[in-house]
């Protein structure tokens, strides 16, 4: 269990606790989506695309000098993008090992797990998997 990750998840959950209803939650997710930097169109390559049936997600991962992982991500739907922002916030700057083993329990806790169901059309589930794969891959490369 990675302490940084745990602390971040606790923080996110606290942020969401104040919201009384769904619309307020989404209001905040939308805000998060808007404040996440968009990837330049030139970076939205098919190689980075995770296709859901409806909204699309782009994900790029790179290694920082200290060996931790840096994610950049985007989506064409703003709510998806807000959730993407949360994932990135939770996992950015962690070690490959921590990413590979990450248990993202905060999503369920804040009640947005339906967006991550494998049958959901937004590509988020695949994104989380893809993030873990990067963790594994970067671990392997050493």
């Amino acid at each position, binding site marked *: 269990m990675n302490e940084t990750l745990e602390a971040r998840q606790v923080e996110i959950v606290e942020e969401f606790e104040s919201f009384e209803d*769904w619309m307020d939650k989404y209001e905040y997710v939308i805000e998060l989506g808007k404040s996440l930097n968009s990837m330049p169109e030139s970076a939205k390559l098919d190689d980075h695309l995770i296709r859901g*049936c*409806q*909204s699309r997600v782009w994900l790029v991962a790179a290694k920082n000098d200290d060996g931790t992982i840096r994610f950049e991500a985007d989506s064409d*739907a*703003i*709510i*998806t993008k807000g959730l993407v922002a949360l994932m990135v916030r939770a996992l950015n700057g962690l070690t490959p090992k921590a990413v590979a083993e990450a248990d993202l329990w905060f999503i369920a806790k804040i009640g947005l797990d339906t967006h991550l169901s494998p049958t959901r*059309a937004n590509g988020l589930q695949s994104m989380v998997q893809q993030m873990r794969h990067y963790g594994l891959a970067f671990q392997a490369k050493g």
Partner: protein
Amino acid sequence: MKSLDPNQIRLQFPILNREVNGKPLIYLDHAASAQKPLAVIEAQREYLSHYHSNVHRGVHALSNQATEAFESARRSVSASINAEFVEEVIWVAGATDGINLIAQSWGRDNIKQGDVVLITEMEHHANIVPWQMLVKACGARLEAVGVTDDGVLDKTDFQNKLKLQPKLVALTHVSNTLGTINDVKFWADEAHAAGSIVLIDGSQAMPHMDVDVQALGCDFYVFSGHKAYGPTGIGVLYGKRQLLEEMSPWRGGGEMIDVVSLKHGTTFAGLPYKFEAGTPHISGAIALGVALNWIQGIGKGAMQDHENTLTAQARRGLGQIEGLRLIGNAPNSSSVVSFVVDDVHPYDIGTLLDSQGIAVRTGHHCTQPLMERFGVVGTVRASFGAYNTLQEVDALVSGTQRAIRMLKG
């Protein structure tokens, strides 16, 4: 004609009492699948609780009772589409299954290298992919009639493409994405004049309007039970008797045979059984019969009137929202409203409507070529049934406004 009181009708739909996300459910996804009246739910329960048995050939009382109910459901279907002969009604698993049956039986028997199959740009994938697969297997060619900006079949294009003398014209009665009602009688006549066989996809018409296969003059007509207030897993393929008689069977197995011999080969049963291999979806067929009778009881005319009122109000209300564009503006249309909003993804609108308890569908609605035609990744689609109310339409309009404010603001 009696007019329809949706509040009376709602009482018959147990699901409409429920909440989602803490809000009362407003179900505007009728075109994806209709909710079920108690009569249908109970018919299925009653069957499974009191007279379930495998049908046909049984000597025992249960089997006879089940068979009678099963065949009586076929007669209900036959009456409700005004088939000339009851054996023209073939049970299938749904519209998709029915179209595949035609493609793989009639199609493989009749489509040869170089032949043309004609569809339209507004078809559901169910009325595209089976033909793509068929023409590929047979070396034939698939052509599609274009759609105008209003979402209407391009008449000139259609007439030009009929000059290719397509062997088959496969056309939807009502578009599930645009709501457009096609003049299928007119096109069936034109297609016949061009020497084509005509298949009508009635999935979105059967739940809403009178269907008379003889008056339409089509050769095949298919629809799914679950969109017509019936259960899942059952649908209907209507075909003109002579055509069906000439066709090869598709699925082999029990029920569809006359004599099976390893030495002398197998001979097949007559209609409709030739196309009904295996134990059928007995409870589904019986409950679909009940669903069609239930629709009959309310009256399709009254339903259509009511749904037209809802649709008009939705189009009016949504049409006034800035930046919102209705996709599909045919003069003659059914209870489906599709729209997109500038700079907003349909998924976001759908999610925010859902969190207000309003169920709409977003995406390509299994009509990707139509999305391409209109240059959109998807639409938000609201669709109405007999149980929807004007208040629900108003909630859709204000909910959409609220969603857009949140997304753009």
